[in-house]
């Protein structure tokens, strides 16, 4: 069973006379373990698509199945629970809680997970370690570099061991070196942990780390292909 199945998806903003189509006739399938970059200039509808895929928004028409179920199969609270357990989110602006330690930030999804509080620290420490931030657990976001902040955000996305990770322009607020480090980590998650990753970007250079690229323009898919010359973040680090 495909992890994600999108068929003839449409999203139209506004109702009545003035309507703005944001997505039109979108169809694709994501299998577990894929690493997909959704590309397109601003206004192409890629953020709207990510919101629908992340159950943060609803399509106007068409079908979106996540693990075989549509958003309409769930109640409001079940949607929240699905986001919590099955999906990890990383945002361009990091969206960490200010004046809150790295450890507490990473623990945040566990708070809503129903997992016993006694297990939170160990679970959070494990992902923090995998991001190489063990020495930073007591630090607050304001004391971290941009790259470190985004790694905290990735750790937070991973802590509940989700089925898919959605990244919205994860390198958009980073300098090129930090951006490469973050991309290396994302690539590693795909290669070594076989995680399913859907990444949104408008930069060709970032999209080239993925295995597959879906290009959007004016709300339509213009291409959906394997990445021919994949970049390997490690090449640049050396």
């Amino acid at each position, binding site marked *: 069973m495909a992890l994600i199945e999108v068929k003839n998806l449409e999203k139209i903003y506004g109702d009545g006379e003035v309507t703005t189509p944001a997505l039109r006739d979108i169809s694709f399938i994501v299998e577990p373990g894929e690493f997909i970059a959704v590309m397109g200039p601003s206004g192409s509808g890629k953020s709207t698509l990510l*919101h629908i895929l*992340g159950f*943060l*928004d609803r399509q106007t028409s068409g079908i979106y199945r996540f693990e075989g179920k549509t958003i309409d199969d769930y109640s*409001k*609270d079940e949607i*929240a*629970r699905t*986001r*919590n*357990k099955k999906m990890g*989110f990383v*945002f361009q602006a990091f*969206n960490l*809680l200010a*004046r*809150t330690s790295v450890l507490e930030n990473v623990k*945040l*999804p566990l*708070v*809503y*997970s129903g997992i016993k*509080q006694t297990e939170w620290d160990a679970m959070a420490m494990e992902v923090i370690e995998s991001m190489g931030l063990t020495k930073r657990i007591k630090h607050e976001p304001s004391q971290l570099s941009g790259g470190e902040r985004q790694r905290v955000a990735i750790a*937070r996305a991973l802590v*509940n061991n989700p089925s898919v990770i959605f990244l919205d322009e994860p390198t958009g607020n980073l300098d090129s070196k930090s951006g490469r480090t973050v991309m290396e980590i994302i690539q590693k998650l795909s290669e070594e942990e076989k995680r399913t990753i859907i990444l949104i970007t408008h930069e060709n250079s970032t999209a080239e780390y993925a295995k597959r690229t879906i290009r959007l323009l004016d709300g339509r898919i213009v291409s959906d292909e394997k990445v021919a010359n994949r970049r390997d973040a490690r090449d640049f680090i050396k």
Partner: protein
Amino acid sequence: MNFRYTFKTAFTSLKANKSRSSLTILGIVIGITAIMVIVSVGNGAEGLILGEVSGMGAQTIVVRPGKEPKGPSDMAGTLYSDSLKARDVAALKKKSNVPYLIDVAPALIVPGSVSYGGETYIPTIFGWTAKMMSEMLNIYPAEGVNFGENAIRDKASVAIIGSKVKKELFGASDAVGKRIKIRNKKFRVVGVYPPRGQVAFFNVDEVVIIPYTTAQTYLLGINYFNEIVTRAASPSAVARTVKDIEATIRETHGITDPSDDDFFVVTQEGVVNQIKNIMGVLTAFLSAVVAISLVVGGIGVMNIMLVSVTERTREIGLRKAIGATDGDILKQFLIESVILTALGGFIGVALGTFFSFLTSFVLTRFVGLDWSFSFPAVAMIMGLAVSAFVGLVFGIYPAHQAAKKNPIEALRYE
């Protein structure tokens, strides 16, 4: 989202804005403090007044001239201030009129000072009977004796003085047999009361008791009384005796319609009920004023919570994106506002207790009142409950605003 964590989160965010949080709860703190003090001082005042009233004894029935005052500014009471005269006393003394009355003693208040040698003192001077004084308050001269019926009949110039009067005029030397001057007329001291302090409406230690006949004729030159103090045979006979007294005096005054009464009857029970009513209304009124201040405080809390919700829009968006339900967000902000106001309530209770205690301490120590500090436990529980309730009521709207935020827009919020 578990409760302990929610509490911790709420505390953390309140601590992050310490001065704002403290200013926000100031209204609640002041409100709860005020309630505590009002109730405590109200209880103390009621206890004090009731203590004094009950000093007059359950059997005592007092007849006063004029109309019963209906309010503090009612002037009707002064209209017939000379309505009680010797004929009323004579009528009341007749067993056929008022069978259960065991004693009748007219009373007059004599303004003025007493002096002996070079010493002068301003006591409370009553023209009364020594017998009524002794039986009503159960106090008898420690030195000397009470003056009797003869002294009253003969309008004798004799006096019994309180312990403080004795001390002021005579110091350590004997007073009995000495001649003191009251309003420049000579009186022989026949008795000295032992120290007793405040009972009923006056201080026993500061009184001078002289025969009412003497006071009427030689000191005041009037033919009426300020009041007639009587005693019923037993507390259970009071109600019936009151009716008999009213009927008797109406007859002597030729009154047929009770609304034309030029006198009124006071009993301990009546006064106690009246005082309880007045204190109850007063406390309720003040509490209502304070309740308004709590509402204002609650609006302040709501205002700040709305600011906080707006400020933390991105946080709300993030929490929702990573799996918080609307209920989780609602709970988080609601608990925050309840903690805020409950904290205000706690501080208010502490301050209220402190100020009530301080009040009773000052009144006892420096004013010399027989004031007992009462910890307003009911007010405390009410205060805490009300403050938490205020947080709940005024927190719901901001928390609802937070819970219904769209996560996509919230995440984009700058």
